[in-house]
C-alpha cells in the first residue's frame, strides 16, 4: 500500500540507482556554492543592519547543503518555485550574485527590477519562477506549471519537471493539501520538497503538525515520501534526482523532507530569544558548511589552504556583488506604472497620490 509504508532515502536511492562516487571536482564545486551562499547571506545580514536592505529578509544560513543539493539535481529546463527564503536558491540556480544583491538593494538591475526585494527573486530564463511571500502561495502555481508540462506532451526521461519548495510550517496550510491532492489525482511531474528547519518562525514542528514526520503527509494523496539529511548535500541531491526521474518518467509526484537547522532567527531582525542555548549550540554543531569543508579536507579533496582560497574567492564575489548593487541606479518614480499591466487597456489608472481626478 503506497500510503502507509514510509520509504527511506536509502531505498529511494537504491531504486533509482543514483548513489555513485562523486568526483573531487564536483564535491569542490558543491563546497564553493555552499560557501558562496554562506558569504552572501552574512553580507546580506550586514547590509540590512546598514539599512541598505529593507523589508523582510530571510536567510538560508544553515540550509546551504540542502539548497545546493536540490539545485544540482535540477535540469536547466526544469521549473523552480520557492519561498521568501530564496537568496541561496537564486545563487545556486545560477543567477548573478550582483543582480541578486541589487534586488535586495531595490535597484533597477535587480533580478526582479527592484520590485520584489528579498522575498521575490525571479528569473524567467533560468526558470526560477519566483520566491513567494505568502506561506503556501507558491504551491498551487507550481502544480499548475506541472499541469502545463503534462499538457505539453507525453512523459519521458527528457521532459521537464517542477520542483516546489516549502518550509515545515507550510505543511499545515490548506493550499498544501489542495495542491498535493491535485498533483496526485492528475499525475503531475512535480517534486515537493519540505525544508524542515524545525521551526516556522518560533513554532516547533511538533507544536504545529499533528503528524510531525512530515514526509508521511504524502500518504493522504498516495504520494511517496522520503526523509533525508538536509546537511548532506549528496543525499539531498540523490533523493531529488530520484524523485525528479519518477516525475519525468512516470508522471507521479513525489515528496522529500530535508532535515535542516536554521542557524539564526526567522529573519534578520529576529534575535530568536525563544531558542534555548542548547538548541542554538546544536544548530551550530550541525552547521553543514564547515562540516563539508572538513569532510573534503579529510577525504583529501582539498587542503586547508585550497579551502581558504575558496572562502576568499567567494568573499570577493560577494564584494563585487555589493559593489554592483551599490553602483546600480535606483528606480525612478517615473517608472512607477511600468508593468502595471501586461496588456494595456483604456482608462488604466495612472494617477499619483493626490492628483486631481481628470475626467473630461
Amino acid at each position, binding site marked *: 500500500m503506497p500510503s502507509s509504508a514510509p520509504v527511506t532515502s536509502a531505498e529511494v536511492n537504491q531504486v533509482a540507482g543514483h548513489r555513485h562516487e562523486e568526483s573531487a571536482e564536483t564535491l569542490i564545486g558543491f563546497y564553493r556554492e555552499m560557501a558562496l551562499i554562506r558569504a552572501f547571506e552574512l553580507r546580506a545580514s550586514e547590509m540590512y543592519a546598514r539599512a541598505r536592505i529593507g523589508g523582510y529578509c530571510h536567510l538560508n544560513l544553515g540550509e546551504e547543503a540542502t539548497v545546493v543539493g536540490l539545485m544540482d539535481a535540477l535540469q536547466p529546463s526544469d*521549473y523552480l*518555485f520557492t519561498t521568501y527564503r530564496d537568496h541561496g536558491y537564486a545563487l545556486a540556480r545560477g543567477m548573478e550574485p550582483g543582480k541578486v544583491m541589487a534586488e535586495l538593494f531595490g535597484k533597477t538591475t*535587480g*533580478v*526582479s*527590477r*527592484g*520590485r*520584489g526585494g528579498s522575498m*521575490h527573486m*525571479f*528569473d*524567467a530564463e533560468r526558470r526560477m*519562477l*519566483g520566491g*513567494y511571500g*505568502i506561506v503556501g*502561495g507558491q*504551491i*498551487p*502555481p*507550481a*502544480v*499548475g*506549471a*506541472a*499541469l*502545463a*508540462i503534462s*499538457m505539453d506532451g507525453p512523459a519521458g526521461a527528457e521532459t521537464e519537471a517542477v520542483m516546489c519548495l516549502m518550509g515545515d510550517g507550510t505543511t499545515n496550510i*490548506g*493550499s498544501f493539501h*489542495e*495542491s498535493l*491532492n*491535485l498533483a496526485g*489525482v492528475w499525475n503531475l511531474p512535480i517534486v515537493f520538497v519540505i525544508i524542515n528547519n524545525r521551526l516556522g518562525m518560533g513554532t516547533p514542528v511538533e507544536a504545529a503538525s499533528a503528524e510531525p514526520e512530515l514526509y508521511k503527509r504524502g500518504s493522504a494523496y498516495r504520494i511517496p515520501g522520503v526523509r533525508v539529511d538536509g546537511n548532506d548535500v549528496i543525499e539531498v541531491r540523490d533523493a531529488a534526482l530520484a524523485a525528479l526521474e519518477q516525475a519525468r518518467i512516470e508522471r507521479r509526484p513525489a515528496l522529500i523532507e530535508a532535515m535542516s537547522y536554521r542557524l539564526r532567527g526567522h529573519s534578520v531582525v529576529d534575535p530568536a530569544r525563544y531558542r534555548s542555548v542548547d538548541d542554538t549550540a546544536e544548530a551550530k554543531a550541525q552547521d553543514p558548511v564547515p562540516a563539508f569543508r572538513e569532510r573534503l579536507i579529510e577525504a583529501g579533496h582539498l587542503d586547508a589552504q585550497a579551502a581558504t582560497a575558496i572562502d576568499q574567492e567567494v568573499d570577493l564575489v560577494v564584494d563585487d556583488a555589493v559593489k554592483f548593487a551599490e553602483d546600480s541606479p535606483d528606480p525612478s518614480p517615473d517608472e512607477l506604472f*511600468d*508593468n*502595471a*499591466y*501586461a*496588456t494595456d*487597456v*483604456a*482608462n*488604466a*489608472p495612472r494617477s499619483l497620490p493626490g492628483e486631481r*481626478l481628470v*475626467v*473630461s
Partner: protein
Amino acid sequence: MTSRSGTVAEPVEASEPGAHGYRRPLTRADHVAMPNAQVMTYRQALNDTLRQEMIRDDKVFLIGEEIGVFEGSYKITAGLLAEFGPERVRDTPIAEEGFTGAAIGAAMLGYRPVVEIMTINFTLKAIDQIVNHAAKIHSMFGGQSSVPLVLRTPGGGGQQLAATHSQNLEVWYAHIPGLKVVAPSSPADAKALLLAAIRDNDPVIFLENLALYNTKGPVPDGDEAAEIGRAAVVRAGTDVTIVSYSRGVLTALEVAERFEAEGVSIEVVDLRSLRPLDRRSICASVMRTGRAVVFEDDWLTYGIGAELSATIAEGAFDYLDAPVRRVAAAEVPLPYAKPLELAAMPDADDLARAVRELLQDTRFRK
C-alpha cells in the same frame, strides 16, 4: 415598507434553483443595430464563445468544478467536454484555491486558462491566489511573467440562495490593481468581453449573473472583441443618467422605458468594465443630463455605487442639479425567505422612485 413588483418567471434550466426569474426588459442588443447577428441567450453566447476560442487557440483550456461531466452548475460549458476532451475541459476536486492557483501556474507557462468558479461566493476560497498571486506576479517580478487567465464567475441574489450564496463581491476585485474586471449585461457583450478577456495577457475577472443566463439578445457573428476599460451608453437620453452594470443595466433600461411614456428621457450608461473604470464616459453623460442615479445589486456602503457617486460628484460637479442618488441593496446578509429577499434587493420600483424623487428635487419640467 415598499411594495415590490411581482416577477414573471422565465423557464429555467433544471440545474437552476427556484422559479424566480426576472422579466426581461429590452437590452442593449435591442437598441443597437447588429448585422449578422443571431438572437440567443447569454448562456449560449458564453458557450459559443468558449468553443470558438478553444478552436482558435489550443492554449485555451477550461478548468473548474463540475464543468465537464456535469456540464457546469449553470450549464455554461455544456457539450464542451464531449468536443474537447477532459484535458481541455478539466473537472477539478472541490479546491478553489488549488485549481485557481494551478491555472495561474499554467498561465505563467503560456497557457490561457479560463477558470470557472461556481459562484462569486466561493471565490473567497481562492482569493489569496487571485489577489496576492495572479494580480501581483506581472508587476512584482518586474514584468518577467504574466498571467493570462480569465476567471468566470456569476454573482447576484434573488434566487433564494440565502446569505452565503447570494453575494455581489465584485467591488473587492474591482479595487485591486493588477486585475481587470468586466461585467457584461447582454449576450452580445458576454461574447465581446469574453473574447477580450481571453486574449488579454492579464488576469481578468469575468462577472456573470445568475439572473442573466436566460436573457436573450442578438449576438454578432465573427470575433470582434470589446475594448476592456470602456463603458457604453446603451440608451441615449437627455434628462437623467442611470449608471449600472451587469443585471442592473436591464433594470435601468426597464425603468427608462417606463419614464419615456411620461416624457422623461433617461440615458443609461453600462459600465461593462469595473476596472479600469471609464470615468470619462460616466461623467460625460452626467454633464449632458445634469442628474445621476447609480444602481447596483450590491450593498450600498463601500459598493460599486460609492465609487460611481464619488466619480460623478468629483468629475461633473458643476453640472449636477442635485446630489447623485444611489440605489443598492439593504445592508443585511440576504435572507432566504422570499418576502425578505425582495425587500432587501433593489428593483425597478426602487430605482423608479429614486429617479422620480430626483426629478422632483430638481424641479424637472418637460
